[in-house]
């Protein structure tokens, strides 16, 4: 029996692993190159090959990218932009996820005349390209007095993200048996009590999905950042762009790479910490009740 179960060597296995490992390597090479380059000196870069280890490991490029590199006129590195991104992303993620949870709850458990139509129209929001809303949004932000502010960016990202978060939560809550809501109503719970005491506690997986999705979208956004923010409210993506495009003469690849890694770090961390929920939340639609 055991021989049949354990096949120590099979052609298929080897093939599968070879393909997977190759694919992983292909995807990892750019990251490795970036990491290696960010720890090299400029001299090392111009003389050596891309994949070679640094002859002399140094944090100099990271320091410079963080606090002294020039991004346009000022030369203070990207750290302001980095914190700006947090100031924008955290409230935007939380608000859009919260609104999405509430919308999803209403669209799945408290349907009313026309609620399906409204839901379809919200879904439409998922398919509207960024470019289309630039001008109207700029005008709206101007009227609200939020042009060129972090709060303005938060408004933009919340507006845009609610379509997605509503879709996520609504589909998740459709899988929750209606009998739960009925039982709670008979127990005397009202609309909000059911939302906060019954629905939200069972929403951890879909919260994780929404948070990862929204955080990645918002953190990586460049277009809204470059259009709706200026100066001290610009996010890290804009900062990175400025850093790479400023600078005269010799290209400081090591500094560029370090700055790019700084810009990518938070989304990586979020994935590592919450990634398993992402998979789980996407696959496990319903709740065992």
């Amino acid at each position, binding site marked *: 029996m055991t021989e049949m179960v354990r096949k120590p060597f099979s052609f298929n296995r080897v093939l599968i692993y070879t393909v997977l490992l190759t694919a992983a390597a292909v995807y990892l090479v750019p990251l490795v190159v970036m990491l290696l380059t960010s720890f090299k000196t400029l001299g090392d870069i111009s003389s050596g090959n891309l994949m070679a280890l640094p002859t002399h490991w140094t944090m100099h490029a990271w320091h410079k990218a963080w606090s002294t590199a020039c991004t346009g006129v000022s030369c203070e590195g990207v750290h302001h932009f980095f914190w700006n991104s947090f100031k924008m992303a955290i409230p935007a993620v939380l608000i859009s996820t919260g609104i999405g949870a509430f919308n999803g709850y209403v669209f799945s458990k408290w349907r009313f*005349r026309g609620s399906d139509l409204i839901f379809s129209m919200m879904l439409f929001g998922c398919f509207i390209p960024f470019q289309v809303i630039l001008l109207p949004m700029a005008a709206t932000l101007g009227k609200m007095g939020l042009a060129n502010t972090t709060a303005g960016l938060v408004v933009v990202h919340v507006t845009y993200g609610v379509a997605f978060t509503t879709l996520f939560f609504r589909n998740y809550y459709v899988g929750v*048996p209606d*009998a*739960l809501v*009925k*039982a*709670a*109503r*008979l*127990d*005397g*719970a*009202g609309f909000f*009590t059911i939302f906060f*005491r*019954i629905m939200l*506690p*069972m929403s951890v997986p879909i919260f994780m999905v929404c948070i990862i999705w929204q955080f990645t979208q918002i953190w990586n956004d460049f277009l809204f950042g470059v259009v709706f923010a200026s100066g001290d409210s610009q996010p890290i993506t804009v900062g990175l762009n400025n850093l790479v495009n400023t600078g005269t003469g010799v290209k400081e690849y090591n500094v560029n790479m370090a700055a790019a890694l700084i810009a990518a770090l938070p989304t990586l961390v979020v994935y590592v910490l919450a990634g398993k929920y992402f998979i789980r939340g996407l696959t496990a639609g319903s*709740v*065992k*009740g």
Partner: protein
Amino acid sequence: MSRLELRAIRKTYGKAERETLKGIDIDINSGEFLILVGPSGCGKSTLMNAIAGLEDISQGAIVIDGTDVTTLEPRDRDIAMVFQSYALYPTMTVRENIAFGLRIRRQPKEEIDQEVQRVAKLLQIEPLLDRKPSQLSGGQQQRVAMGRALARRPKIYLFDEPLSNLDAKLRVEMRTEIKRLHRRLRTTIVYVTHDQIEAMTLADRIAVMKDGELQQLGTPKEVYETPANLFVASFIGSPAMNFIPVTVQKGDRGLHAMVKSDSGETIDLPLPLALSAYENKEIILGVRPEHITQIQAHKEGQPLVARGRLTIEVTEPTGPDVIALVNINGIPVHCRIDPDHPVDPGDVAELMFDMSKTSYFDPATEQRITL
């Protein structure tokens, strides 16, 4: 202990073109155990949800203890419901599940603890109080669902197929337990089931529904022995009642009907004189399988008893009886035979017809002919 009156309840769902409830009128006495049966989709759950206040009704009134509650919210009706799917709150422990309704109603903590203890003891779920629903077996979840309903001591309990997800043995156990609970608490209960035995054993009265209409309301005995129409007759009882269309004829010894066995032999079935209005007309005999049996000496010579020779086609031993299939007038007919009188497929057996318990139906109206 509360009286529940359903007055001419009508319900049409928002987008549906057909009416789901077409005027349901039932008075449920205080402390009564009412069982609701009917085919799938006939509106049982809809009626339960309407009573609970989870669905609005289109017309009619729901009255509890003389108070019209038709427009009240579920929480203000003081009704508890046990769902087929149990609907336990998955993120709460058993204790929290049971206490939830009491907490919402802001009862003092000591009272809640006491109540949880009382209910847990009653249902023997004390060791489970700190578990989550996902860590319980189906039977245990079912108990917790009942516990949640019992905790508030509401005026009325609604059970919507509470046992249908349990295996056969557990179902019998819980059935007994529910009956015992009802004996003790004497609370008004409305209970939906698909299970014949559950209906017959638990009910004070049974309400049979079809297509949103009440077909018959009566004690289990009434519904079983004097079904109001062909539908009730065929729905209640397993194996189902046999229906044999015959023509009422007048003979020298009173009314009778002639039927033919599969071999062409004529069997003469005596009919009560009360059917004289149907002389030379067609009626449908409704004969329960237990009234076609082996020859029983003590019934010999009684007025509404007949004999006939029939070929046994199939036998199904159930343990206490053997259900045998024969053919009368070309219609398959089930009989119930004592296993001590062995019959085998292919045998020609002499069977006894006890017509004193037969129901008679008008083929045109499908209604019972009351004698």
